[in-house]
C-alpha cells in the first residue's frame, strides 16, 4: 500500500466516477461488500444516520473497504467533501472525526482537489477522547 500511495497519480474530482477498480488492489468478498455498501450509502449523506454509519466504519478501519484503498474511497469522498466542509464546531469535528481523518487522507493521496475546495483540517485541535462504551 505504501508503494501504491507514493506512485499514485492523483485523479481530479471529475475523473472519480470513471476511475477503474484496477487502479487499486483486488478486494476480498468482504471488502467488496463494504465497498458497495458505502457507495450506496454515499447517495444519502444528507441524512445524519448515514454520516454516523460512515464515521463508525472509519473508526476501526483506515479506508472504506477496510485496511486497503479502493475506488469506493474516491466515490464516497466526492460525495462527502461538500458535507464535511460545513463542519466547523468542535462538537461536529469530534462527532465526525473519523470521516475528517479519512477525507484528509484521500485528498492528500488519491484525489486532487483545488486548494479552495479542500477540506481544511487542523490536525492539532484538541478533542475529548472517545471512550468505548
Amino acid at each position, binding site marked *: 500500500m*505504501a508503494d501504491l500511495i*507514493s506512485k499514485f497519480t492523483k485523479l481530479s474530482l471529475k475523473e472519480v466516477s470513471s476511475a477503474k477498480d484496477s487502479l487499486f488492489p483486488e478486494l476480498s468478498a468482504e471488502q467488496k461488500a463494504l465497498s458497495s455498501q458505502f457507495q450506496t450509502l454515499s447517495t444519502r449523506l444528507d441524512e445524519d444516520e448515514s454520516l454516523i454509519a460512515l464515521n463508525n466504519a472509519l*473508526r*476501526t478501519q483506515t479506508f472504506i473497504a477496510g*485496511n*486497503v484503498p479502493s475506488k469506493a474511497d474516491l466515490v464516497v469522498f466526492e460525495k462527502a467533501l461538500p458535507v464535511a466542509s460545513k463542519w466547523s464546531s468542535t462538537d461536529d469535528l469530534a462527532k465526525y472525526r473519523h470521516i475528517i481523518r479519512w477525507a484528509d487522507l484521500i485528498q492528500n493521496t488519491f484525489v486532487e482537489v483545488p486548494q479552495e475546495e479542500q477540506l481544511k483540517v487542523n490536525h492539532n485541535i484538541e478533542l475529548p477522547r472517545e471512550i468505548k462504551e
Partner: protein
Amino acid sequence: MSLSLSIAGKAQFVAYPALIAANFVNSSDVDSSILIEFIDDKTVDSESNAGVKLTTAEGKTLTEQAEILAYFAEKFPGVVPEQAKNEEWTKFALDKLYVKNFKELATDLEKLDAHLNFRSFVLGYNYTTADIAVWGVLRANALMGSILKNGVYTNVSRWYSLLADDKRFESAIEFMTKGLNELRKASKSAKTGGKKETHKA
C-alpha cells in the same frame, strides 16, 4: 555492500523497529539485502549490553535503535522513508512505549491516540520510520495485546491494525519467532548428543 543486523530475542526491549526496517529493505527491489541474525539471549554478544547490533557497509557498529533507523533511512531513501520531525516520534517510541508500567504507558498512549485523531499515519500521508518505530515498540510490549484487542484507544487500534495487515510488519515478527524456535531446537538437539528428536507414537 554487506550489512548485518543481530537481534537478541530475550532482550528487555526487543528491537522490533530495527527488524521491521530491515525487512522493508529486504522485501524491496533495491539491490542489496541485510543479513539478519537472531540470538536466543538477552544481549547480542557477551562483550556488549546491547540487544541489537548493526554492522554497517562502512564497517561501523551501531547498537542504538534510533541510530540504526536513521542509518537505514539515509542509506535506503524511499524504501525506509524518513520525514522531518521523525526523530521526535521515534524517540518518543523508544523512550516511552517499551515501558511495562501500565499507568505510565496509558498516559503516552493517550498522547498517541490524540495525535491520531485526524491522522492516518504518525506523520504525513504514508509510512515513515516514525510508524515503524512506534508500531515495532508497541508490538514488543506485552501489555499491548489486550489493550489493542479491547480497543481502549480507538485511533491507536485502527492505525495499528492497518500496519499489522502490511506483510512487512507482522511477517518480520513471524520470521524472528521462527528463527528463534529453530535455534532452540538446534541447541536442544546439540545437548542430547546431536541426536535428532524423534516423535513418539
